[in-house]
C-alpha cells in the first residue's frame, strides 16, 4: 500500500518537473515567433511584389533568385562565394585579434597611468573620428593590396576604439567600497588588478567584443573595396555589380550578413561560458 503511494508520488513529481520544460520551450517560441513571422512574411511579400510589379531582376532580384545565385556560385567559378566568405572571415578574425589586443593593452596603460590617459585618449578619439574609408588606400599601400594583412589592419582600426574605451571604463569604474575593502586587506595594486579590476572589466570587454565582431567584418569588406585578392566578399560585390550580376551581389551581401551573425553568436557563446555570473545573462539589469 505504501509502495503504491510512493510510486504515485514519484510519478506525480516526475510529471511536475517535466511540465516545466514545455512551458519554457513555449515561452521561447512565443518570444521569437513575431520576428520569424515578419522575416518569412517579408521574404514572401518581396518575392510576390517583384513578380507582380515586374521589377527587373538586376534592380531587385527575387529571394529565390538570390538563393539560386548562392547555390550556383557556392564552391567554384569567378564568384565562388564560400571560399570568398572564408577569406573575408579570416581577415575579420585577424583584424579583430589585432585590434582587440592593441585596445586591451592601451586600456591597461590608460587605466594604470593618468599620464597615459591624458596622452592617448584625445588621440584615440581623434583617430576614431576619421572615416574608416580614408584609411583603406593607406593600408593597401603599407601592407600590400593583395595581402590579407591590409584588410586585417582596416578591421583592427575599427575594432580598436570600442575595445579600448570599454575596457578602460571597466578597469577604472570599480565600486569605491571594493577598493576600500581591498585596502583593508592590505592588498597590493597587482592583486587589486587581478582580483577586482580585471573581473570587473570582463562584461565591458565582451560588450565591446560583440560590437567589434560586426565591425571587423565591415572593416575587412570596406578594405576589399579598394582592391584585394579576387576571392573575397568585397571584391565579389564590386565585380558582380559592375558586371550587372546583381543576383550574385545580393548573394554575397546575404552571405556576409550571415557570417557576421554567426561571428556575433560565437562571441555570445564564449561570453556565457566565461561569465555565467553576469547580470545581462540573467535578464536582470544589474
Amino acid at each position, binding site marked *: 500500500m505504501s509502495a503504491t503511494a510512493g510510486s504515485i508520488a514519484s510519478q506525480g513529481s516526475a510529471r511536475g518537473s517535466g511540465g516545466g520544460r514545455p512551458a519554457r520551450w513555449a515561452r521561447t517560441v512565443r518570444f521569437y515567433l513575431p520576428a520569424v513571422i515578419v522575416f518569412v512574411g517579408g521574404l514572401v511579400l518581396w518575392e510576390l511584389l517583384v513578380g507582380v510589379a515586374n521589377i527587373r531582376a538586376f534592380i531587385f532580384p527575387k529571394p529565390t533568385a538570390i538563393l539560386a545565385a548562392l547555390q550556383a556560385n557556392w564552391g567554384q567559378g569567378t564568384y565562388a562565394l564560400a571560399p570568398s566568405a572564408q577569406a573575408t572571415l579570416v581577415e575579420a578574425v585577424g583584424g579583430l585579434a589585432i585590434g582587440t589586443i592593441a585596445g586591451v593593452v592601451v586600456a591597461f596603460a590608460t587605466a594604470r597611468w593618468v599620464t597615459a590617459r591624458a596622452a592617448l585618449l584625445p588621440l584615440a578619439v581623434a583617430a576614431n573620428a576619421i572615416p574608416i574609408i580614408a584609411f583603406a588606400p593607406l593600408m593597401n599601400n603599407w601592407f600590400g593590396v593583395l595581402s590579407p594583412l591590409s584588410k586585417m589592419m582596416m578591421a583592427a582600426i575599427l575594432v580598436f576604439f570600442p575595445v579600448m574605451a570599454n575596457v578602460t571604463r571597466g578597469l577604472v569604474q570599480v565600486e569605491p567600497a571594493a577598493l576600500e575593502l581591498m585596502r*583593508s586587506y592590505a592588498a597590493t595594486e597587482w592583486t587589486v588588478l587581478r582580483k577586482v579590476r580585471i*573581473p570587473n572589466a570582463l562584461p565591458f570587454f565582451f560588450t565591446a567584443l560583440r560590437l567589434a565582431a560586426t565591425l571587423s567584418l565591415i572593416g575587412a569588406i570596406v578594405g576589399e573595396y579598394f582592391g584585394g585578392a579576387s576571392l573575397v566578399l568585397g571584391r565579389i560585390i564590386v565585380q558582380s555589380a559592375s558586371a550587372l550580376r546583381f543576383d550574385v551581389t545580393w548573394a554575397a551581401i546575404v552571405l556576409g550578413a550571415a557570417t557576421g551573425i554567426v561571428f556575433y553568436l560565437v562571441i555570445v557563446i564564449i561570453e556565457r561560458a566565461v561569465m555565467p555570473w553576469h547580470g545581462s545573462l540573467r535578464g536582470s539589469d544589474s
Partner: protein
Amino acid sequence: MTVSDKPVVQLQGVDKVFGGGDQPATTALEGIDLAIRSGEFVSLIGPSGCGKSTLLRIIGDLISPSRGTVVVNGKPADRARRDRDYGMVFQAPVLFEWRTVEDNVKLPLEIQGAGSAKRTARAKEMLELVELGDFLGHYPYQLSGGMQQRVAIARALAFEPAILLMDEPFGALDEMTRERMNSEVLRIWERTGTTVIFVTHSIPEAVFLSSRVVVMSARPGRITKVIDVDLPRPRNEDTRETRRYFELVTEVREALRRRRGGDNADEAPPDTDIGGLGSVDRTMAEGAVG
C-alpha cells in the same frame, strides 16, 4: 566576550580636516580621544555629518587623520592594517558578483596567502557561523540583501581579525531583518570575542548591541558623551522590552539632542533614527564627510 583592560584601540587628539588649499576646509573631526578595550562592542552614533564613518575609517587606516595618533594593538594604524588586524563590513555588502558565496569569503584568505585546504575549511566554518552553510555555491545575486550582508560578515571574520569595523552594516535593511541581524551579530560576537566598532544611525540598535555607546555631534564632529550599557548578557528579543533598555534608549536620545555649548539649538534636529523605525532613506546622505 572577555573585556580586558588593555586598550586595543587608542585615539588621542585626532582631528580630520577635509579640503584646504584652494577649497574651503571642513573640519570633520575635532579632538577625538577614545580608548576601546579588547573584546568590547562599541557603537558610534550621531547625526549625519558628525564624522562617525570618518572616525571608523581613520581607525581602520582607510584614511589618515590630520592630527593626533591612532594606536591599534600597540602599533600605528597602518601597521595594524598591513598586519591584517581589521575586518571591514560596509553598508553595502560589496560582494564580487563573479565569485560564489564561498569564493567571496575565501578572498581575504587568498590575499593573505593561506593554503587551499585552510581556505576551504575556514570559509565553510564562517558561513556556517552566519547560518549560510547551504549556500556555498550560490552567486551573490541569488541571495537576499540580509543574506548578502551575512556573507560580508563571514568574509570580514575569515582571517580572525582582532577588530571588526562595521559601517552601518544594516542601514539598508528593513526593520525586521535588521533586528534579526542584530541578534545574529551579538551571537557571533559572543562566539568569537572579536572587538567590534559599529557605526549606526539607530539608537535601539546601538543600545541593544553595545557595551558602550559613543555619542557624537556634528560640525565639527566631536564626542559628546560615552554611555555604558549595563544591560545583562546574553541579550535577546526580551531585552528590548525591559525597563533598563528603554531608560538607556532615552539616555542616548537625550545625549543626541543636547548640543555641545548649546549655542545652535535652533539648528535642524539630529538626523538620527530616534524611534527605531527605518533610517534607510537617510543613510545615503552621509557622503564623504559622514
